[in-house]
């Protein structure tokens, strides 16, 4: 369960949104809507501790009843999926997954886990290609598989469907919903597309600009 209390984000000292609170149960998706430029991505960046220089935020973040605020990005165990798939171009498809697998998974299992993960998004036969040789839809699926391979405790989705065409978008939504249910983790989806919200979210809320 992911709980957010009075989250606010700032550009320099100027508040972007009015305080925002929400609770997301495991296995459900909360859609956060709002016009572009209001600070939706900044909100997710604050949750993931990856704010760009000059931006900052405040408010409590609780994941499974533990506070995340004191932890740096790499210790938060959140999965972040962005508009751009940001696949590492110097690693093959399969290596991108292996890079994400936790180090405690035993050696003989790593290969197996990788192939399972690729199979789950239908990329098994592309394992040894470079990510830049995949189609846009395949890249998006690989990014999702990579995020899930790191076994996150919650999923942050930053308009991950916006660059895909209509049919791919429907497929990706199904995959994401399935993954959230299967891993039984909470997810936040920020979007300005109402269709995203109605298609897969269990709850929707709207961000309002700071007064």
């Amino acid at each position, binding site marked *: 369960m992911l709980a957010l209390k009075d989250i606010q984000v700032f550009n320099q000292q100027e508040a972007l949104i009015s305080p925002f609170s929400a609770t997301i149960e495991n296995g459900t998706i909360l859609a956060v809507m709002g016009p572009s430029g209001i600070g939706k991505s900044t909100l997710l960046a604050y949750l*993931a501790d990856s704010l760009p220089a000059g931006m900052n935020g405040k408010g409590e973040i609780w994941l499974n009843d533990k506070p995340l605020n004191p932890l740096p990005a*790499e210790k938060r165990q959140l999965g972040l999926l962005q508009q751009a798939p940001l696949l590492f171009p*110097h690693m093959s498809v399969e290596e991108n997954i292996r890079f994400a697998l936790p180090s405690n998974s035993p050696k003989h299992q790593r290969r197996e886990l990788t192939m399972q993960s690729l199979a789950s998004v239908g990329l098994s036969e592309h394992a040894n290609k470079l990510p830049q040789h995949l189609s846009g839809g395949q890249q998006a699926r690989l990014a999702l598989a990579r995020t899930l391979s790191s076994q996150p405790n919650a999923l942050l989705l930053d308009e991950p469907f916006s660059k895909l065409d209509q049919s791919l978008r429907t497929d990706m939504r199904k995959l994401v919903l399935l993954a959230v249910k299967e891993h039984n983790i909470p997810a936040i989806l920020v979007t300005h597309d109402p269709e995203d919200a109605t298609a897969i979210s269990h709850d929707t809320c709207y961000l309002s600009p700071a007064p």
Partner: protein
Amino acid sequence: MLLPSFGFEPAFSRYELTLDHWLALGSQPEFWSGLWLSGSSGIIATLLSYWFASSLLVLCYHRSWFQRFQSAITPILSIPHAAITIGLLFLLSPSGWLIRFISPWLSGWDRPPNLLTTQDPYGITLILALVVKEMPYLLFALLAAISQLNPNAHITTARVLGYDRTSAWHFVVLPRLYELIRLPIFIVLAFNLTVVDVASIIGPNTPSTLAVTLLRWFNDPSLSMRGLASAAAIALTMVVLGVMIGWHLAAKTLISYRHYEALRGDRKTPFRWLTTVGAIGAACTIVMTALTLLILPLWAFAKRWRFPDTFPSTWTFDNISRASRSLIELSTQSLTLAFTSTTIALVLSLILLEKERHTDLSRSHTQRLLYIPIILPQVTLLFGVQVSLLWLNLNGTWYSVAALHTFYSLPYVYLTLKSPYLAYDQAYLDQANRLKPLKWRNFFMIKLAMLKAPLFATFAIGFSVSMAQYLPTLMAGEGRITTLTTEAVTRAASGDRKLVSIMALMQAIMPLCIFALAMLLPRYWTPIRLTIRKRMC
């Protein structure tokens, strides 16, 4: 160059081929010790420079002050290395500034200690001087390359996957970054292995580095030494190529090992303290550069500066006024050479780039040819050039010096101008040509005018390259053409610190001024032009 080393010297009417020079070279103890010194100092200096620069990047790239820091260090690049080396010599020598700082209260010395702090036989100060020169250059190259890589997004991705910032850099960014800066690293490697001026100012002598030794052999009046020098020059080129191949293989191995480590999923890279130490080294290097730039004006305006005093006791302008005649002469020579050669290099680059815009085929060929002057050792190449100049009876003329300066600034000018020039949106010019059918006028008034900023910046770089040239001026000018640089280097060891500082200072100030102008002029050009127009109407 190759032929004389086997005894074939048409300039001296020798046409038979022998291996004598090579055998003589092998039996010279100075050759082997010089080879060892050149190799060790060149490789270590390059390693340190890369280590420092990349560590600084890893630890500080995300900080908010880094942007400002970046623009603050850029002008350092334009300062000729001879000037920095001379400053470093005055900083580190037994009677230098650092020892004055701690004397006599800490060290107890009231006269310069009998220590070899500079020109030490192991080449430690030489390595230091090379790092001070090359670390900022590599940092600059890394920064230029990194803008193509979108590092922040990839680092965030890796961090969200559980890797800390340093590991994210090592696994995700640096392997790709290295590919992009391989050429700058090879340039640094070639420079460090073969540099003459820095090594003769601050490097060990008897034995000195191979490049310095072979220059001495080459200038030896006896002809047999010339053959020896040719053979040594070829040997030096082989060493440079060998070290580059070795470096490349070592880097490949290291990168694939890193790759293997990354895929194991370990969230931490080993030896993380190396990054911290490297960043501290980088900070020290920058402080050192700042100190060397401070000490030059101190000496230039000092009247009395006795040993343990930290600062001169009396100041004067006499040093400058006394030397003003020769200073004006040397500066004029330096300036005319720099302006002429850079302008020619700029025009040539424009022609090459305009050609390149139309054909994709010529690209690889021109580029490869242009790398020759920056990758091949200057000493080797210039011996060959000098032999040809002698043959054509052009040695010692101003024109041949200017031509060589052009030859050496052309690659830098071309490479700097290339990406902004090719990125220009040709639609503006096409539109202009449709509006007004004056092709040449439009080319200048529209295209070049819009490319003002990169053109000026490129000019500043070419200018500072020309200002820094020591060996080409010396070899083609044969002592008849002297510049600030050749005089400062020749006199560095003379002990006349005041005069040498003035020369080094002027050598540093001129490119800095041009750099500042190149930054400011394009910004204010149009406002100034419009005000002038308004006044005239």
